[in-house]
């Protein structure tokens, strides 16, 4: 049957469907605003300067301990009189950065691993997939805990870190990337392999092969573009998981260390303030609320992408 409308590429079709999905669109706007806030707020503080900039610097101590939300401190202040709004945005930086890099790590490893396994097939495939099976049976979160407590402190003691405090903090974050990325690529690898396996035998790939195309050409020109939808969808669903993991580790005191802050550490501080005598509700509601909203936004976008690309649940 011939269609007279101009044909749309799969990407364009998906984009059309995605735009019709209201929660996903709202979520995208929210994320864009949040990202903008993260980027602009520090600049704003420097530009405005003066007492406003001073009072709202995320690490600035002040005598206004536990001030409730007001026009001056929108989200109130914490134990040290630090502005919670600034700290939430500051924590967002770290949390989203860890989420993003962790996701990218999982993307690179997962796609390469899965594509190679699926394309090569045979013995290579079974070996690679067996490794994935093995890693699946590792108690991941436990291994991360052991890895971070032991390796983190070990490296911290080494000379090159003690001489530079910045390296110490960066190291912790780096360990988080590696650890979180390392546990998240497994599912990606499985999905990509499945896709590649089915694409490999399709006519247009066979055709390309008979025309003498090498595996690198086929992978990069035919296969990778065709699994783009699956990958992007899965990425959108991986990122909230990693952000959640990071907050979980930070809550245990194993994530980023003070003076750095992430949503996890902020929430942990807020949770510590819940007691029967009085509740500094703003310390838990605001960091928790922003984090939950972000996670939901990411999930909605993921769902939206999945519907848009029409990917069947496994």
């Amino acid at each position: 049957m011939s269609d007279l409308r101009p044909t749309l590429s799969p990407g364009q079709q998906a984009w059309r469907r995605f735009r019709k999905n209201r929660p996903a669109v709202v979520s995208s706007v929210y994320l864009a605003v949040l990202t903008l806030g993260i980027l602009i707020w520090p600049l704003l503080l420097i530009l405005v300067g003066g007492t406003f900039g001073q009072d709202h610097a995320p690490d600035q101590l002040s005598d206004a301990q536990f001030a409730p939300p007001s026009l001056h401190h929108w989200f109130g202040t914490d134990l040290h009189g630090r502005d919670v709004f600034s700290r939430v945005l500051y924590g967002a930086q770290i949390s989203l950065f860890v989420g993003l890099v962790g996701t990218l790590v999982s993307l690179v490893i997962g796609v390469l691993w899965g594509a190679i396994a699926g394309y090569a097939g045979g013995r290579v495939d079974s070996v690679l997939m067996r490794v994935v099976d093995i890693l699946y049976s590792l108690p991941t979160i436990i291994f991360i805990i052991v890895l971070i407590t032991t390796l983190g402190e070990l490296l911290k003691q080494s000379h090159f870190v003690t001489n530079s405090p910045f390296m110490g903090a960066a190291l912790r974050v780096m360990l988080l990337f590696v650890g979180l990325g390392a546990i998240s690529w497994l599912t990606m690898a499985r999905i990509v392999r499945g896709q590649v396996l089915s694409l490999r035998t399709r006519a247009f790939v066979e055709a390309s092969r008979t025309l003498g195309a090498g595996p690198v050409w086929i992978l990069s020109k035919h296969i990778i573009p065709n699994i783009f939808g699956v990958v992007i969808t899965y990425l959108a669903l991986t990122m909230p998981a990693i952000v959640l993991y990071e907050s979980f580790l930070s809550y245990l005191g194993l994530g980023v260390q003070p003076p750095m802050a992430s949503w996890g550490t902020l929430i942990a501080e807020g949770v510590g303030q819940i007691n029967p005598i009085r509740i500094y509700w703003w310390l838990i509601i605001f960091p928790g609320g922003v984090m939950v909203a972000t996670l939901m936004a990411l999930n909605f976008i993921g769902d939206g992408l999945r519907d848009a690309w029409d990917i069947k649940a496994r």
Partner: protein
Amino acid sequence: MYYLRRLLFAIPLLLVISALAFALVRLAPGGPFDNERVPASPEIQRHLLAKYHLDEPMWKQYLRYLGDLAHGDFGVSLKYRDHSINDIIAEGLPVSMTLGGLAFCFALGVGLPLGFFTAANRGRWPDRVGSWLAMLAVCVPGFVIAPVLIMVFAVKWHWLPVALWESPLHMILPTMALGLYFAGQVARLMREGMLSAMQSEFVTAARSKGLGENELLFKHAFRIAVLPVVSYAGPMLADLLTGSFIIENIFQIPGIGVFLVNGSLNRDYTVVVGLSLLYAMLLIGLNLVVDFAYTLLDPRVKYE
């Protein structure tokens, strides 16, 4: 045959895990007997290390550990010196399993009806609210929901105890806190499953036959839609059993999760290695069960 092979394969895997954990904890700075007060004589420290064979080279310690392991002995905790790891597991695992099991029931008990309900009302406001709630449950971390539950149900209204593990009442809040995330997941899976089942051809056929909408939902669609949930149940159970330590910590529940986190902070070498192994075994076992269930579920799936 396939399963036998996988079981055999688990042995080298466990060896690798134990070696890795064994080396990692020992590489970390600080030892189990570094305390705030240094003993009056360095000899004491030396005797102490010798007593637990920590003065030997690491490979020798590891071989010794494997030897003990072959006899089913996980060794003695270096911090709780009266307790063997076997004791700790025997005391803590049933508690952790009870908690995990209850949370499992909670997740299914809440998630299935919610998913069913939202799907049955597709597109209307109950669906929007229900789906949103399910999404919320998936996005709120357990360590946030637990203190909030304590605050509301225990501290404000005095309905339930704030912590400890003594009576059925004590189990309600931890079960909810642990199971909420999974309830959300189940609800989402169930809703998806219902929606695709309702569109499937055999339900259309049944509808054309003139069956009532309710009968259709309950008798036909439900039974297909529940299948993805069943296949999710395995990994979920594994997650519940191995991931409960934050909840155990917040509610002061004497399970084993707490030991692992504290063990690695205290450099309690034997606890860390022993519990890592235990968790790995649990996970391997559950994965096997899941895969086995898959083959029953879907005759097209065959492992060889």
